[in-house]
């Protein structure tokens, strides 16, 4: 499954970049995120409750940031297991572009794969669910970042 889109954020590129590297912000914005802990530089473990159609499961797994090019781009990738519900793995290339001094356009290019019961039962729902979740993430991310920028 692949999807790409972009989100316009009313904050400077540096502010957006900082937020993208802030586990607290990520935790706040990832839909269903129960915990997110830094285990090593650019490495985190996360627990996320994920629901697709009739399948709901708690996924736990690793999140890794790589190909860091501050404050322009990075790759965020992860994989998690939801026990009998299956597994998910994937990543996103995130790229920032300054539209002006205080407006940044965030481009994302996601490539994800799911397996197990999640894929069997949720196949027809997965694309719409993923698009919805990505939308939710970046919407709340834009909200958090612009609030921070305003406060800052």
């Amino acid at each position, binding site marked *: 499954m692949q999807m790409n889109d972009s989100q316009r954020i009313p904050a400077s590129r540096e502010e957006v970049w900082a937020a993208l590297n802030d586990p607290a912000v990520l935790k706040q914005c990832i839909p269903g995120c129960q915990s997110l802990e830094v285990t090593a530089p650019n490495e985190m473990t996360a627990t996320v409750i994920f629901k697709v159609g009739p399948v709901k499961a708690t996924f736990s797994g690793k999140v890794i940031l790589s190909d860091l090019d501050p404050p322009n781009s990075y790759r965020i990738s992860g994989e998690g297991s939801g026990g009998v519900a*299956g597994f998910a793995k994937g990543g996103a290339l995130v790229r920032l572009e300054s539209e002006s001094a205080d407006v940044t356009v965030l481009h994302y290019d996601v490539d994800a794969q799911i397996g*197990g019961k999640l894929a069997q039962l949720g196949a027809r729902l997965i694309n719409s669910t993923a698009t919805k979740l990505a939308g939710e993430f970046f919407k709340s991310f834009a909200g958090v970042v612009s609030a921070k920028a305003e406060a800052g």
Partner: protein
Amino acid sequence: MNDLTPTREQRSAALEGMGCKRKRVEDIRFTQGKGNYVDDVKLPGMLHGDFVRSPHPHARVKKIDDSEALKVPGVLAVITAETLKTVNLAWMPTLAGDVQMVLADGKVLFQNQEVAFVVATDRYAADDGINKVIVEYEPLPPLVDPFKSMDKDAPVLREDLAGKTSGAHGPRKHHNHIFEWSVGDKELTDAAFKKAEVTIKEMISYHRTHPSPLETCQCVCSFDKIKGELTIYGTFQAPHVIRTVVSLIAKLPEQKIHVIAPDIGGGFGNKVGAYPGYICAAVASIVTGKPVKWVEDRIENLTATSFARDYHMTTEIAASKDGKVTGLRVHVLADHGAFDACADPSKWPAGFFNIVTGSYDFPTAHLAVDGVYTNKAPGGVAYRCSFRVTEAAYCIERAMDILAQKLNMDPAELRLKNFIKPEQFPYHSALGWEYDSGDYHTAMRKMMETTGYAALRKEQAEKRAAFKRGETREIMGLGVSFFTEIVGAGPSKNCDILGIAMFDSCEIRMHPTGAGIARMGTKSQGQGHETTWAQIIATEIGIPADNIMVEEGNTDTAPYGLGTYGSRSTPVAGAAIAMAARKIKAKAQMIAAYKLEVHEDDLEFDIDGFRVKGLPEKFMSMKDICWAAYNSVPPGMEPGLEAVSYYDPPNMTYPFGAYLCVMDIDVDTGVYKVRRFYALDDCGTRINPMIIEGQVHGGLTEAFAIAMGQEIRYDDTGNVVTGSFMDFFMPTAVETPHWETDFTVTPSPHHPIGAKGVGESPNVGGVPAFSNAVNDAFSFLGSTHIQMPHDFWRNWRAAKDLGAVA
């Protein structure tokens, strides 16, 4: 005699014998919800088992941690491959000469493969336990596309076969290769193609699908430690085979294994094989000393127990310009999944696919089949067909239409031109079969006349012209199919399962009052054996069918038989019934002769008893003979009236039929309407026309499902994406078209009552009729072949690809 004496017609009708539309006796309990299925079996102290399954299609199993699962209230045990190794049961033999993991041993090879078996006091606790078993996997690259299975760099699936250059069916040419099977004269066929005036070539795929009986596979195993006896209640199409297999692999003496198949809610081939669930439930019962039940859920059934088809058939026909076929060449790539658990007679790795010459007089043919491993569920069962006959019929019937299109000939005319002629029977086919009997021209012409075929073609031509003028967006297709099946496996000279010849059996025991019981080696899953078997006996010995009880499915009481699948029950067991009945009749004749004080040869059988020739008033009914058999037999004769017959058929039987599907498709939406479906079947002697009609309705409905949408589909990463009835097409009364049935009767010359079998004909002949209708509809837009299944979306896409939709 007086006016109250029944006429011969009345006496005959009272028997409800062969030819009578006798109502199904089993339906009395089924329609009242009083059937007794495996899930109705509830034994004291019974435990429940369920599987932890792999979410990965291909992965190494690094670790299985059951410590948390064992803390779940009600969970008693978690069985893994390591547990099974202690009793040497981590792997089991398959019917195809391969071996299969019972539980994942170091590796998983398909999604939903069985990894661990959780045993608990109830199903809920077992499910909770499954959620707590932590399995650590290391994913490996999955192999999904069979066409890539023999690539040089294809992943190695079966590490257990490392270094094995030959398998159960000869040499292996690649680490993912299972067998190559070829038959026919290659040189002669190649020569026919060299000098052919016209040839066609097409890769015709018959997609992977699933028999999907409404009742899933299930069992209850109960081990009695004191007696050392194992009782297995299960959804078994072949109970005796299960008993023998269990005895061989569990090393239990066969007399201490009791296999009972109670009522079965549909089988369609899905319930022939032996599955890990059976082994695990048996081991769990031996370990815990309690009965253990295992019941598959729908997803498990669709994704783990035997699939069907998955044949990719590159088909070539050579012909003359005027449409006479001169040669057939077929290569099949057969996707068998992770283990070769194909259910075929042992010597036939591609079943009876060499019936692929169909109803046509091909002077020469050559067939080669390559079986390969992929990361998919194992199986390859005969889903309402006789061992790959559906694939063969689809292959040749589609190819004949493609040839007709190339020659610009009518598909029905092309068939009529190439049919085997009535006087050619018994007919020896180029690929080695001896067709017993047939009259194809009569059946085809009857179909064409009854349906008004010529008028339909005329209407189609007008609609095509109107479509081209832009006056309609609907296209019309006529799907012609003329199939020849090969059923009734089978003669011991070429059919066995694990070395056991594929005979079948019947034991008849008559009681003093003129009633009796017939015990069979077969097992009905809905076919109505309790009704039809009694009808054969009624006609053969003159006792009303209502007085005969038919019993199947208990290996302790039934004579050994190979079970019910591949339309073999009537051709094989039906013959055994007639032969056993004739033994009864022969003894009855001796008793009657003694009682009527004449010589046996002076008696003739007359509907329901014996009459002295020329002295019509001297008559003894079979009912009275039954009584006499228990109190006044001739001196020196043993009392009693019973017989057993084990029937080894001299040949297969070859039912055939002519089908027509009339379909309209809206090119803008892809939505199709089956306007008309006509099915003419010739199954030889007809035992119960009502049951035949029911069989044809059911088989056509399954054929409709398969051709028009039913599919087990995997995505590129090995996920099954049609694992529930939400995505797997299961037609209901809403989608199912109206069926018109018809028949001709060409008895089998070698069968005691001339019957050929019918249960699977409609599936075999139906799929090509539907697919040919869709292909015929699109052909004038320039297409030669569109792969099944033909669901709305694919129809729309076909229209789009052909430029009919913007």
